[in-house]
């Protein structure tokens, strides 16, 4: 903990940053009373190669304050989103640079129009992205359910050059920029003690983080998604898998356009990620056929907050590794 920032230009600021990181409100309060502290923190962190971001939550979704050009507000950290997604309600004056039909689902033939735009700058703490393309979509239904103003989603491509560690218990997000030089050897100070965590390989598939595992002798391909509150499992998986699921009740999920769909809610047992048994993992069982691509490759499930919050968890998107604290 004493060397969170280990890049030489910032060494002298280590004690100050530590002090500020501790004193900064973990769950930011309603009124911005600690403004001087926050401003000071941001001054040091701006343009830096690492930062510790206290986050708040809407339900179990991670909210980060970010700025897109001149518009500042809450963005959801969503590793299930490919990149930057803007809520069109607040970015309606941006020119739509691409208005294409993207075939998102091979076997169902679902086609949806994706509006895109170019933004000048996205910035939050030590993260700055200039001149990037963003999707423009209506995120009003998230606002309506959560009662929180949501300006957009910060997706995977924004974080690809970082080592990212999520600590739900303390509501802190750690980001370390992976230097281009010796990128494969990079490890932040939090990962120095290798006995504290397990390392699990990940891969990036269709702009999503995927981990592979086995259950009941069957291979499973699961997405790691901070934008999903619940874990999900495809109802079309082999029956052997469901021998490990204790069904608790039937539920109704609301999909696009307020359409309701039946699903089952239960506990998944005996799942291991890396060497760690996840214990009794709450899971929604639903039909995930719309995740399939044209080549019939599908995902088998999603690991969301109910999994991510079990332990401190980290990702290195350059080396394609996931770190799960013991």
């Amino acid at each position, binding site marked *: 903990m004493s060397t969170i920032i280990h890049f030489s230009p910032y060494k002298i600021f280590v004690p100050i940053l530590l002090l500020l990181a501790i004193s900064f409100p973990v769950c930011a309060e309603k009124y911005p*009373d600690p403004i001087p502290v926050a401003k000071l923190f941001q001054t040091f962190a701006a343009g830096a190669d690492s930062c510790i971001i206290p986050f708040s939550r809407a339900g179990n979704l991670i909210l980060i304050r970010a700025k897109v050009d001149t518009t500042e507000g*809450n963005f959801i950290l969503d590793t299930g989103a490919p990149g930057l997604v803007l809520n069109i309600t607040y970015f309606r004056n941006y020119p739509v640079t691409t208005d294409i039909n993207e075939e998102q689902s091979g076997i169902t033939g679902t086609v949806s129009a994706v509006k895109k735009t170019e933004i000048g700058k996205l910035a939050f703490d030590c993260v700055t992205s200039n001149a990037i393309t963003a999707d423009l979509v209506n995120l009003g239904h998230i606002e309506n359910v959560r009662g929180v103003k949501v300006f957009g989603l910060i997706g995977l491509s924004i974080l690809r050059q970082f080592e990212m560690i999520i600590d739900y218990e303390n509501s802190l997000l750690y980001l370390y920029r992976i230097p281009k030089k010796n990128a494969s050897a990079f490890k932040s100070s939090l990962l120095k003690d290798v006995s504290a965590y397990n390392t699990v390989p990940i891969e990036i598939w269709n702009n999503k983080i995927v981990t592979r595992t086995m259950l009941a002798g069957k291979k499973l391909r699961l997405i790691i998604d901070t934008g999903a509150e619940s874990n999900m499992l495809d109802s079309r998986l082999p029956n052997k898998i469901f021998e490990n699921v204790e069904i608790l009740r039937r539920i109704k999920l609301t999909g696009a356009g307020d359409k309701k769909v039946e699903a089952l809610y239960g506990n998944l047992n005996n799942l291991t990620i890396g060497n760690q048994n996840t214990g009794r993992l709450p899971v*929604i069982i639903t039909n995930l056929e719309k995740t399939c691509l044209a080549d019939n490759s599908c995902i088998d499930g999603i690991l969301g907050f109910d999994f991510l919050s079990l332990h401190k968890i980290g990702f290195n998107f350059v080396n394609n590794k996931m770190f799960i604290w013991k």
Partner: protein
Amino acid sequence: MRRKNKFIFKWLRACCIVLAILFVQAAQAQVDIKSYSIKNGRMFIAIGKKLPKDSLQNFIVQYELADLDLHTCLRTGSTDSLNKLGWKVEINNAEVFVISKALFSVTNIDDPGDKIIFAQNPKTDSQPNTGDQGRFGYNRFKNKVPFIILDSVVRFFLRGNTNAGTVNLAGSFNSWQPTALQMRKTDSGWIADVKMGPGKHLYKFIIDGDWRIDRDNMNTENDGMGNDNSVYYKPNYLFNLEGYTSAKKVVLAGSFNGWNERDLLMQKTSSGWKLAVFLSTGTYTYRFIVDRNWLTDPGNPDKLSNEFNEFNSVIRIGTPYLFKLDGFLDAKQVVLQGDFNNWKDDELFMSKTAAGWEFPYTLGAGNYEYKIKIDGKFTRDMNSGGNTVLVIDPNFTFRLKGFENAKKVSVAGDFNNWTTNSFAMKKEGDEWIFKAHLYKGKHRYKFIVDGEWILDPGNKLWEQNEHNTGNSVLWFEPDQ
């Protein structure tokens, strides 16, 4: 490709039949079977025909299957209602009843917005956060007793953290000033006395500079900007039931909590049962449930009749609004009914005066609709032609400039359930206005000009709706 799909489909059907046979065998071996399982992408429910009624009811409650009406299906043998819901009867013989249904996907989770909604936590409340109007509340603490109250002073208590150097208390009661209220250390934690009025108060502890919600307080609230705060309700009403000390459980249910029969457990005292709550201005009806028996409050003489030909006890907090109807002096019975009493037409009987009829009724801030029934016939509102609108404590004015030749302009939104004509706007100068009471948070609305729904031309924020015509969006922050 199509041939391949056909083959797969046939293969799956064959599997289902084999499974169904297996179900029969299993079920015949055990006639009191009840199971919910998933096979080949389908849900299967198997119920033994000799399963006792209460056991079946427990199964229905556990898996939330009330809409299937399994009691009737098993009793009458009719499965039409199940078929309509998409269930397929696999087996229906003297021993066992097995039904199945495919699980469908309606959401493309590659769309991040849809995926987030789809993958909500089913355990959490997915109701819209309307800023919690704070009309009703009670404290739910774990690991510690509720804060002690002496007159108007509340003693806030933070359990533990005795190694901390300083602990401050900040909240809506001190404008969130981080250093204004330093807490005092005790043997078991930290305390601070705060003078405050009844109602909803937000707070956080600042432990050595670190802002923390009260982890022992189960009431938290997101402020709409993504920040969580702890919520404390300073009570202003004590529900009290004397006696019944041998009862196992006493529950309070009323209009303030949607008559929920489980939520509000009363606390046992040496002489009876009590529960302290906060109730904002308004009229509330309630009853006690003593070991499942509903009871009118014997200690409260104020009561109104209910649909069971019994009485609900009544609490009125605040100054009443006087509903008036001029004339109709020959009428025998005049009844007031509105959304504030769930349109009950046998509850609020108006009293005759020298000039007409009146009825005092206490209402909190909000938008209401009502009708008056005179000897069984409704009066009609002169403006809207329907219900009469009453706005108590308006705090926001909808304005639409222009449209000087329009004959009828109204505003509709989530605040009036999108009712077309109820919120009729009045012409003032070069604009149409309507004064409403809005709750904190997001609102969606549209204007209706001579029958045509339009977005608010004075508001650049709008979002798409299910009709692809858009709704204007307003984030309302009332003056504190």
